[in-house]
C-alpha cells in the first residue's frame, strides 16, 4: 500500500530530470504534498508562493507563456476550486501547458473534514475546454500520469490522494490520455472506476465472483478524454454499468460515462459515489463507508440491479 501522492512526487523528480522546462510551484503545503523533495533536488526550479492559490495559478500561466511547464500543487479543493477562475479564463482559454496537481483528492484527507475534502474537483475541471483530467489509481500510475503530462499540449489536471491505496500497476506501465485499462473481464456487469475506487471495485468483483456473478472492472484513469473504445467494448459485452468514484456523482466519472454512453452506446448506468452531500471528519475508511464508497456498496448495487432485471 502506498499513497498516490508518493507517486506524484516521484513523477515530478523524474520529470524535472527529463525536462528542464519543468518548474514546481507549491502553496505552503510542500511538506504535505511532498514537493520539498523537488525543492531539494532542483532548488532553482521550485517556488513556494504561500497561501495564495489564485496567484499561484497566475504565475504558472505566466511561466507557461514564457515557455516552461509549471506544475502547481496544493490540496485539490483549493487547487481546482479557489483558482477555478484563473484556470478557466487564463490557463484553459489560452490553452497553456500548466499542470495542476490536486492533492488530497476525494475523502482521502479524512480527519480534516469537509473543508479539505475535494469532492467536486473532477466535475469543475472536466467541464473546461482544452483540459485533460487524469485520475490515477495507485502510486506508480500517478508517477506515470505526471510523466505522460509532459507530452500533452495544453492544461492537465492530475488528481491524487493522501491515503495509502493498493498497488495495482508496475512502475513502467504507462499512462496514455484517452486510454483506460480493462483489469478484469466478466459479462454480468461492468464496474468503471477511477482513483482510489479502482482497488475497491476489484474487491467488489471478487465478492461478486464468489456468488457466481462475473463482472468486468475498468480503470478510467483518463476521465477527459474518456477511453471511448473501452466504453464501446464494455457496452458490447454487458448490459449493466456501475461507476465508482470518490467524488460527487454529479459531474464526475458517472457524469462523463453517462454523457458518452447515452449518446453512443446506451446501457443502464448506476452510480456509486458521493450523493449530493459534504464529507465529514473520520478516518478515510469511516468517511468512505459513511458516503457509501465501499466494495459492499458496489457489489450490492450490482446484485440488486441484476435481480430486478
Amino acid at each position: 500500500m502506498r499513497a498516490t501522492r508518493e507517486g506524484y512526487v516521484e513523477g515530478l523528480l523524474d520529470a524535472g530530470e527529463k525536462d528542464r522546462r519543468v518548474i514546481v510551484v507549491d502553496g505552503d503545503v510542500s511538506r504535505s504534498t511532498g514537493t520539498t523533495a523537488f525543492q531539494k533536488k532542483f532548488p532553482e526550479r521550485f517556488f513556494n508562493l504561500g497561501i495564495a492559490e489564485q496567484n499561484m495559478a497566475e504565475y504558472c500561466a505566466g511561466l507557461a507563456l514564457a515557455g516552461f511547464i509549471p506544475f502547481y500543487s496544493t490540496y485539490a479543493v483549493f487547487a481546482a476550486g479557489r483558482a477555478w477562475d484563473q484556470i478557466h479564463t487564463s490557463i484553459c482559454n489560452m490553452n497553456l501547458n500548466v499542470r495542476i496537481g490536486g492533492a488530497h483528492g476525494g475523502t482521502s484527507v479524512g480527519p480534516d473534514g469537509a473543508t479539505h475534502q475535494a469532492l467536486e474537483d473532477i466535475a469543475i475541471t472536466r467541464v473546461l475546454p482544452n483540459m485533460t483530467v487524469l485520475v490515477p489509481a495507485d502510486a506508480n500510475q500517478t508517477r506515470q500520469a505526471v510523466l505522460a503530462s509532459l507530452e500533452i499540449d495544453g492544461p492537465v489536471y492530475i488528481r491524487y490522494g493522501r491515503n495509502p491505496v493498493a498497488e495495482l500497476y508496475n512502475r513502467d506501465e504507462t499512462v496514455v490520455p484517452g486510454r483506460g485499462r480493462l483489469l478484469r473481464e466478466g459479462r454480468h456487469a461492468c464496474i468503471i472506476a477511477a482513483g482510489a475506487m479502482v482497488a475497491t471495485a476489484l474487491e467488489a468483483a471478487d465478492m461478486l465472483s464468489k456468488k457466481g456473478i462475473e463482472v468486468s472492472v475498468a480503470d478510467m484513469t483518463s476521465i477527459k478524454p474518456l477511453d471511448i473504445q473501452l466504453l464501446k467494448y464494455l457496452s458490447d459485452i454487458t448490459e449493466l454499468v456501475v461507476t465508482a468514484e470518490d467524488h460527487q456523482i454529479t459531474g464526475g466519472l458517472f457524469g462523463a460515462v453517462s454523457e458518452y454512453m447515452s449518446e453512443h452506446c446506451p446501457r443502464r448506468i448506476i452510480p456509486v459515489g458521493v450523493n449530493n452531500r459534504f464529507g465529514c471528519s473520520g478516518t478515510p475508511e469511516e468517511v468512505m463507508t459513511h458516503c457509501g464508497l465501499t466494495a459492499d456498496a458496489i457489489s450490492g448495487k450490482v446484485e440488486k440491479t441484476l435481480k430486478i432485471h
Partner: protein
Amino acid sequence: MVSPKVIREDILRMIHSAGSGHPGGSLSLVEILLHLYWKEMKIDPDNPQWKDRDRLVLSKGHGAPALYSILARRGFFPTDKLETLRKFGSGLEGHPHMQSLPGLDCSTGSLGHGLGIAAGMALGLTIRKSKARVFCILGDGELQEGSIWESAMSIPALKQTNLIAIVDRNHVQLDDAVDKVMPIEPLAYKWRAFGWAVAKCDGHDMVDIEKAFSNRTDKPLVIIAETVKGKGVSFMEDQALWHGKAPDSEQLRKALEELE
C-alpha cells in the same frame, strides 16, 4: 511616434463601428501605451514571437481598443483590420485573445489575473536569463480584486525587478467613481507597504511618463499614472456612463471634432 489624436480617433471609430466597447478606459490609456510601444519596450513587429521581446499584459483587458490601435499603428497588423473590432471572425476580440491577433502577449479581460501572469512571465524570463522585461497595466477599479494583492505581495518577495506595473488611475469604474464604489486610497502607501517602489506621473504627459519609467530601483516599480477616464472627449471625461458604451453617429462626430 503617431500622435495621441490618431489613436483616440481609432478608438472612437472602432467602438462606434462595433456598437459596443469601453471608450472611457481606452481613452485614458493612450499616452501610456504610446510610451511603452514607441519608447520603452524592445519589440519587433515583424517577429511578434521573438523570445527576448519585452512583453505587455493589459490586465484591464477592456482597454483593448487602445491596445489594438497601438499594435496596428506600430505595424503588427494592418490598420484596416481595426474596424472589425468585436465582429465575428475578427481577431479583434472584445477582450484581448492572444491566439487571435499578432502582438498580444497574453489574453486578458477577467480583472485581477494580469499582475500574477505578468509575474510568472517575468520569473520565467529570469530563469531563462533573458534581459526582457514585462509590463503590466492595471485599472484602478481592478485593484479591488483580492488576487492583485496576492501578486503584489509575491513580486517583491521574489525580488522581481524585471516587471513594471502601471496603474491607470482614472478614478472611475463601471458603476461610479472608484472612491464611491470601494475606496482604494491611500494607494501609494499600500504599494510601498507591500514592498514596491512607487512613481507617480501625469498619465497624459509624455515627458512625465518617460520620467516615471526612468526610475531605477532595487524594488519592483509601480507607476501610478494619473489619468482622465474618457480623456479628450468633453462629454465622456470622468463619466462612469462612458465606461462601456458606444457613441452613436452624432456623438462620434462631436467627439472627433473635439480631439486635438
